[in-house]
């Protein structure tokens, strides 16, 4: 383990009521770093923070602080402090006593306490507020007191659980700058939890993107934005066009039925990939020599700094473009993309794969349902099989009871000419679906597989 790691998290897992909230989390935090755990609600980021703070014990794994496992140490003996989401100030104490709470427990000399509290009040620009009751303070002021109360103990690490979520936009922006300034002045390691990607990009040295209890990507804000490793990260951070593509060879990728130069290598030849192009990276041109493809402007909306346009390409794909200049709806435009701005990602999956068992020659039991399949001469009832189903061979039905099994639309991505959906079944399995139909997140659906689309192979021989 390197010397400058202050926290090292190894194989951390946690389940609540049978649901895995954290699944084998591994990462380290450098001393003095501002690290952000970023993800949608329910991704496990707060659970992770609460485990570091000591309010929840992990099921498995270790949390090392400066090389020592602290998993078994109660929160009041950990040299860490937390800033809570809704401040959690003590209403019966005034501002001074709130901040002095931790120091008094340490039984420091009163002069020392006073010195440190005053210094901290100055740090958060609340010098004249010592005698105020915390209820009389605004949200922003309460948050400052909460930060001072935590920092006054000089913790080795400061944990912040969505500390700005309850503030209005303007206040939030100001506090972001102040937090960054405080971090710089104090030199303490900050672990920050948020679901706001913009906040994460603004504040962090390192971002840990999480989803469904797993780490998706760890990197600097620019890495995460420019080189997302998968569709989830690309979609979650900023706006993006996520498209199905094919790596032709090194530095050459095909998508939206055109071929483009790119900078990625090592994917192999003729390999299916996902491609991300940020909307600000598609450029308009009037030079036919530069033009890579043409499109027709479909809509154009003014967004303050830039215009957001949807265009239909000559090959029938929809793309989002952001530009400082507007283009008239209905006009034909020429477009190009710089090789640098094309981010190629390995496909996380190319088909659904399930393990199952033959019921009879034309039926197979998979993920809690019995599906019809093509007659299988070489398979007999009871055989253990592996089933592969392409994304487009899954049928979604409006009524849950019409499907063999039922599920819920869990995540959706628009890929230029179709939607790629993640369906969470009632049994907790994931099914991925390509469809042209429009569904919303949370829609309840019945699920069926096209009998011809189920490809079965016998297992274990």
């Amino acid at each position, binding site marked *: 383990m390197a010397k400058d790691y202050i926290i090292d998290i190894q194989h951390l897992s946690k389940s609540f009521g049978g649901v895995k909230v954290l699944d084998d989390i591994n990462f380290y935090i450098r001393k003095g770093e501002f690290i952000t755990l970023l993800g949608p609600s329910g991704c496990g980021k707060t659970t992770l923070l609460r485990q570091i*703070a000591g309010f929840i014990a992990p099921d498995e794994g270790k949390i090392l602080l400066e090389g020592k496992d602290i998993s078994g140490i109660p929160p009041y003996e950990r040299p860490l402090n937390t800033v809570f989401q809704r401040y*959690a100030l003590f209403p019966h104490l005034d501002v001074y006593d709130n901040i002095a709470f931790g120091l008094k*427990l340490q039984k420091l000399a009163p002069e020392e306490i006073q010195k440190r509290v005053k210094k901290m009040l100055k740090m958060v620009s609340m010098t004249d507020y010592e005698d105020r009751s915390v209820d009389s303070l605004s949200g922003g002021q309460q948050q400052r007191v909460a930060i001072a109360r935590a920092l006054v103990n000089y913790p080795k690490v400061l944990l912040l659980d969505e500390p700005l979520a309850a503030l209005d936009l303007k206040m939030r922006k100001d506090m972001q700058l102040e937090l960054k300034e405080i971090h710089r002045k104090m030199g303490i390691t900050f672990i920050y939890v948020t679901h706001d990607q913009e906040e994460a990009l603004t504040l962090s040295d390192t971002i840990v993107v999480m989803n469904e209890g797993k780490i998706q990507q760890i990197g600097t804000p620019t890495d995460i934005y420019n080189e997302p490793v998968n569709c989830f990260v690309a979609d979650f951070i900023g706006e993006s066009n996520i498209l199905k593509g094919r790596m032709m060879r090194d530095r050459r990728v095909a998508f939206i039925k055109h071929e483009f130069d790119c900078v990625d290598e090592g994917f192999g030849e003729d390999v299916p990939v996902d491609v991300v192009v940020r909307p600000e990276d598609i450029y308009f041109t009037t030079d036919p020599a530069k033009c890579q493809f043409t499109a027709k402007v479909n809509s154009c909306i003014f967004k303050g700094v830039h215009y957001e346009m949807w265009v239909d390409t000559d090959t029938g794909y929809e793309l989002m473009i952001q530009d400082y200049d507007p283009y008239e709806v209905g006009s034909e435009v020429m477009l190009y993309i710089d090789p640098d701005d094309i981010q190629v990602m390995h496909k996380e999956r190319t088909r659904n794969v399930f393990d199952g068992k033959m019921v009879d020659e034309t039926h197979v039991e998979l993920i809690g349902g019995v599906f019809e399949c093509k007659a299988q001469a070489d398979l007999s009832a009871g055989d253990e099989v592996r089933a592969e189903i392409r994304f487009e061979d899954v049928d979604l039905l409006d009524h849950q009871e019409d499907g063999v099994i039922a599920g819920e639309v869990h995540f959706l991505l628009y890929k230029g000419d179709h939607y790629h959906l993640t369906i969470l079944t009632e049994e907790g399995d994931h099914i991925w679906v390509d469809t042209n139909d429009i569904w919303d997140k949370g829609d309840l659906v019945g699920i069926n597989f096209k009998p011809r689309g189920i490809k079965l192979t016998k297992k274990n021989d």
Partner: protein
Amino acid sequence: MKKVLAKAYLYLLLAMLYAPLLFIAIFSFTESRVLGNWTGFSTKLYVNLFSGGMNGGSSLLAAVENTLLIALISAAFATLLGTVAAIGIYNLKGRKKAAMQFLNNIPMINPDIITGVSLFLLFVFLHVSQGYATVVLAHITFCTPYVVLSVMPRLAQMNPNIYEAALDLGATPAQALRKVLIPELRPGMISGFILAFTMSLDDFAVTFFTRGTIGLETLSTYIYADARKGGLTPELRPLMTIIFLIVLILLVVMNMRREKMNKTN
């Protein structure tokens, strides 16, 4: 016209509610042994009450003393138990929580006489000799749910993170309880204590069934026995007036506290 009728109805109702109390208060300032006979203003009954110079001697004062002491002890214990129970119930989830809150409500709607008889049977079954201790135990039992009921709302409106915040700042669970949780719950605990105190103070049925045969008298059992002997001891009139005033003051204090609490929130 409608308004006048409505007002008249209200005042009539209030008059009927308060007339008996007023009646006793007025007649506590006369010497007549028979209630309703005005024999001129006098504070002799008050003097008698406090000097013990009356028929029945010091037994009335002893009953008052018992009543107050029992109420104090039971309210104190009920406050302790009820607060701990409220914190426990608050930390339960879903169905368990609803079930516990329901169980807590039953003793409050249960008629006193049933509580009294069942406690009596329990003590007999357990071969506990009945007396002062059993009365106190019984009072703690029926007072505790009221404390739970007055502490729960405080817990519900408390920021759930403040206990964790205290731990986070280095307080042990005991310190967090003492320095953060109890101060936060104190208004609810005080309301609960006052409620428990008044409940214990005016209890008759439960006391009657659990006091055993050692001759323990509280105010309510004393008055009951006294009335059965024929005619109420006249000194009860000033006593009741004083008790009424004390309860009135407690009520006003409680209401003022509640208003103050509502204002700060």
